[in-house]
Every structure is written in C-alpha cells, then in structure tokens.
C-alpha cells in the first residue's frame, strides 16, 4: 500500500534576527548577521490510510513545526508534502482550500483554540459554510447537530459559549470543529496535554472510536510516551529538528535502536516501580540556532565517534522496515544490536 500522506525532506527555518539594528555585528568590522532557528532539518516519513502515526520528542524538537508544515500553516523552506499522491505544499492559499477540508487540525489548548465570543453553533457552522458554499442552512444545521453527537456533546448546548464548558468538553468541541467538514486526515498537536488525567482517557477513546467509525488517518503529536505507545501504529522519534527513528510501535518500544530513542523510552515514569533506572544523558539539548556539526545528538550520545561529529547520518531503512538515522546502528557497533 502506498503512503496516503508522504512527507519528504521537509526543512523549516525561522529567521528570528528582528530588526536591522539587531542584525548588526561589530566583531571584525561591521557586518550583518541573521539569526536563524533550524526547526526542521530534512524530515521524511509516510502515513498510510487509516493509520495513526505519532511524533514524539522533547520540547523544541520541531514536532509542532512539522505538524504545521504538513497542513501548510507554515510554508516549508524546502521539501515536499503529498496528499494521496498530489503535492500540496507548493499550492497557493486559494488552491489549497479544497485540501484543507480534507485535512484538519486539533490544537493543544482548548481554551485558546476556541473563540470565546462565538457560540458552539457558530464555531461549528463556520467551517461548513466556508468550505461548502452550496450547503443549505438546514443541512448545515443537521451537520452541526450530527458532529456534536459524534463527539458526545449534547446538541441542545449549541447556543452556549466556550467558557460554559469544561476543558474536556472544549476539546470535544475542537474535535467536532475539525470533523464538521468531513476530513480524512486529522493532525492533532498535543490534544490531551492540557487535560486532567481522568479526562485524557475519554478524549483518547473518542479519537480511537472516530477512527474506527470513519477510517480517519491521524498524525498525532505528543510528548506523552505511554499514550503514544497505546494509540499509534507507527512512531517517529525526533531530536532537534531531525528524525532519529521511525518504526512500528511494537518494534520501537520493545527494541529501540537509536541511542536517543533508548534514552527517551527509559525515562518514561513507570507506574509502580520504585526509584529510577533511566539512562542519564550528559549535558542539555543544544540550541537549534547553532546546530551541532554531524549528528545532532553526538554531544549527548555515549557512543559518538569521530564520524558522528563530522557527518550527518542519513536515515537508513533496516531489514525489519524501520528507519534509523545513526552511524552506530549502520556500522553495527552499538552493543544492543
């Protein structure tokens, strides 16, 4: 089966130099210097139809930027995004409109992502009217009631405002807004991070139920590794804007290959286990402004050698189908291989 969503070599940089005065440097004569954040450095992977692919990594690793590039909130510097074989990253704002109805996004903060001055009805009606001009008012009303029912919010509450709902209910409404235009592909950026533990399970169940009913495809961004393990078919591990490992959930969690994946998974808080035995990484995550040479992880990797400091590792597809970007894995010199 070919990939439904294909992400190829995505690169995104942000210029944060500010004004002209802030760019001027006086060291060795006067010259201008731009400050650039390297948020994504050539990330590639694919998502099959009806599948959930999750992206995990620590804050600042570029997972949210990735989500926003895929749905074209950001325009990537280079690289391509294909939707069902059609390239969508280079389309104009007008030309991408029909694709936007097929791909929708759910954001992290259900307090910030709903307009406080719009009723639930208005919030849900807007995308329908925007994407389907010829839908009649009564059809649109029916659609609003239908999506509210789907996400478990009583349609009688459609005249209420966001502040009248709890966090979990608001996230249901955010999801309803995404579903209103009958999308095939949903990008969810940390959709449960702002919710309480007892509500998280409700929203995750809702995501899984909707996928089972409607065959939705998910790109799920999360830092919660236990949740990702539960809901995903495949998982992408990112570090400092680069893909480290991309593998089936079972493969990844039972036998991670990339040294960073191993460290990350070992740090998951284990319920009911006393004390700690995670892998300690030396140092801190470097800034994405001055990327390290070679492998972005080499400064913290206990297995880094001269080649890792010099040469950026290319993602290599292994015999078992997983993708790993690590010289050590390629050379077979890591002890757990």
């Amino acid at each position, binding site marked *: 089966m070919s990939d439904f969503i294909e992400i190829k070599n995505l690169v995104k940089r942000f210029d944060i130099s500010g004004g002209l005065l802030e760019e001027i440097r006086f060291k060795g004569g006067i010259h201008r210097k731009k400050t650039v954040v390297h948020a994504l450095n050539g990330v590639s992977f694919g998502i099959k139809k009806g599948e959930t692919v999750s992206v995990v990594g*620590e*804050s600042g690793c570029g997972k949210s930027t990735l989500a926003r590039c895929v749905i074209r909130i950001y325009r990537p510097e280079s690289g391509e995004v294909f939707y069902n074989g059609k390239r969508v990253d280079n389309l104009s704002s007008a030309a991408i409109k029909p694709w936007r109805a097929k791909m929708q996004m759910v954001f992290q903060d259900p307090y910030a992502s709903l307009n406080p001055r719009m009723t639930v009805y208005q919030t849900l009606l807007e995308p329908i009217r925007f994407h389907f001009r010829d839908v009649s008012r009564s059809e649109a009303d029916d659609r609003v009631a239908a999506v509210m029912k789907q996400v478990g919010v009583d349609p009688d509450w459609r005249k209420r405002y966001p502040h009248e709902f709890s966090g979990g*209910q608001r996230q249901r409404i955010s999801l309803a807004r995404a579903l209103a235009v009958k999308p095939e592909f949903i990008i969810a950026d940390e959709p449960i991070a702002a919710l309480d533990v007892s509500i998280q*399970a409700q929203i995750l169940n809702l995501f899984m139920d909707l996928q089972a009913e409607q065959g939705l495809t998910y790109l799920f961004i999360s830092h919660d590794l236990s949740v990702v*393990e539960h809901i995903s078919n495949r998982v992408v591990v990112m570090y400092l804007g680069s893909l480290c490992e991309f593998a089936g959930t079972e493969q990844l969690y039972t036998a991670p290959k990339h040294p960073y994946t191993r460290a990350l998974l070992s740090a998951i*808080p284990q*319920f009911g286990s006393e004390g700690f035995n995670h892998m*300690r990484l030396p140092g801190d995550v470097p800034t994405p402004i001055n990327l390290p040479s070679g492998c972005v992880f080499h400064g913290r990797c206990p297995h880094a050698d001269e080649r890792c400091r010099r040469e950026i590792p290319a993602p290599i597809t292994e015999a078992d189908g997983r993708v790993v970007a690590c010289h050590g894995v390629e050379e077979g010199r890591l002890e757990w291989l």
Partner: protein
Amino acid sequence: MQKQEPLLSVRELSVAFKMRGGVLTAVDGVSFDLDRSQRLGLVGESGAGKSVTGFAILNLVSRPGYIAGGHVFFEGRDLATFSEEEMRNIRGNRISMIFQDPMMTLNPVLTIGQQMVETLKAHRHISKHEAEKIALNKLQKVAIPSPEKRLTQYPHEFSGGMRQRIVIAIALLTSPSLIIADEPTTALDVTIQADIMELLLNLCEEEKMALLLITHDLAVVSQVAERIAVMYAGRIAELGSTEAIVNAPQHPYTQGLLKALPQKVERRKRLNQIPGSMPSLQERPPGCAFYDRCELRGEICHRESPRLVEKNAGLVACHMVKDTTGKEEK
C-alpha cells in the same frame, strides 16, 4: 509503644475563596501526618486542592482565599499561633518550597550567587564568605558542573533542567526538615524530569528530609513517595502506602484512575475511562463528590459525605468499601 510525634500534622484543614457567586471551598477538612524523613505524595486533578493544601501549610494563601478552619502542627507546634515573624523563620528555613516554574522562583536580575547568599543571610547570621561556601556546597550536591563559575551567572544563562536544580539547591541551603515540591517537573521534558526526580529522591534520603510531593502524575509519585494521598474535589479520597495504592487501590476514584492508564489495556484498544468530570467546588453536591461518576454508588452516597476512615491497609473515604480486616469502625 511510644510513637514518635509526626514532623507535620495537618488536621481538618479547610481553605476557602470568597468569590462573586459565594464561597468556594477548595480544601475541605484535609488531615494527614508526615513523619520525619518520610515522603508523601499528594495527587489529584487540577482543582482538587492539592496545591492550595501546600500553600496553606505555610500560611501562604492570599486573598480572596483564607484558611477557613483546621490546624497545621509542625514539630508539634500549631503554626496558626505563630506570629508573622515566627512564620518567616519556618518558611524557606525549616520548610522549603519548590514550585513548578523555576523562573517564577528565581530573580532574573540577580546572579545565582547573590540569590543564594541573600536567602542564607535572611535566616542565619553569617558572613558573605561563609554563605558562599555553603552555596557552593549545595550546588555541588545538585550536580551542577563548575559551580564556582555558575554562582556568578544569571538565571537566563541556564537551561530549564539546570534552573530547577538551582531552585532545589536554594531549597537545601538552610538544611530544612521538610520540602514541599509543587509539580517540580511538570514544565520539564521527560528525560530531565527523571533526572530531577531522582536527584530529589536521593537528596531526601541523604539529608534525611521529609518530602511532600504535589503532582498530578501518578507514575512519578509512585516512583518517589512512600505514601500517597489521593485528593478529589478538595478532600482526601484515599491515603495509604504506595504499595497499597499501586496494587490494591480501594477508592473507586483511585481504581478508576489506575484502570485508565494506557498500559492497563491492550494496545490500540479503548481505555477504561471514568465518565464525567470533577464537580465544581462552588456547587458541591451534598453527598460524596464522586457520586455522579462512581460505579459502586449506593443510596447512602447521595445523602451523606463519607469520612476518611481506616479500612483494610489504608485510609479511605467511601461508604461502599468493605473493611475485611474484621475491625468495625463508627
């Protein structure tokens, strides 16, 4: 047998907030004990009252909130009888507090050294030089590399994990007997979270400090605490040893939380969710606050609020839990 007096004893503590629509009781008759060098975890959802409990212990609840009742005994003395000056001798000295966001605790315009010396001089009559020596020692304890150099740096020159280490070092300065840590790792990434929690655990053991760890993360608390108190809607629903809570939770809310953990069901299958959400504390229902969401609820639960009583291996506030040890209370 003579039982040692607990380090901290919270008795029927209530904290209320004056709101436009009436009075909101955020903490409603909470009682627990914490022995010397013991670690207690206080878990619950947002709004359960766990942070407010932490603040109330140090009498730090500010308007419109107020302590509506109860007592806090520290080393046997009622903190309510303390003058503001005596309280200052407790806060940051005998009891230190660590907050979620290190940038909220650290002053951005002072160097780490200045802040540490300032803290020490507020509580001890010592010279600047002596204070710096203690500061250096504590920075080494929290594993900050090249501490001499670090003393002269400002908070923005440190990463998030390093800042939280510094906050811990500041908390250690006066060798307190109790640390209250309110979500100390919530703002941090998981690899750093594990490092910080391990550090905190080791320091408590080495320095014989007691720890009150306030968090929403059951997994983290189970790795660090010896006992766990589960809070729901301003009250303690269940209190017991970590082992008992992990292996044999009694309260239906605790049971629900544990059953909802993703690792409890097969991958890609529906999770066991608890229906509904926590009731608003302004309209607390007359009976058990968990009534609407409870699978075990009976007729009495709707009428009468359950008290926290000893049942089986721990304390639980639920009418429906049977005590099988043979003791009959009430």
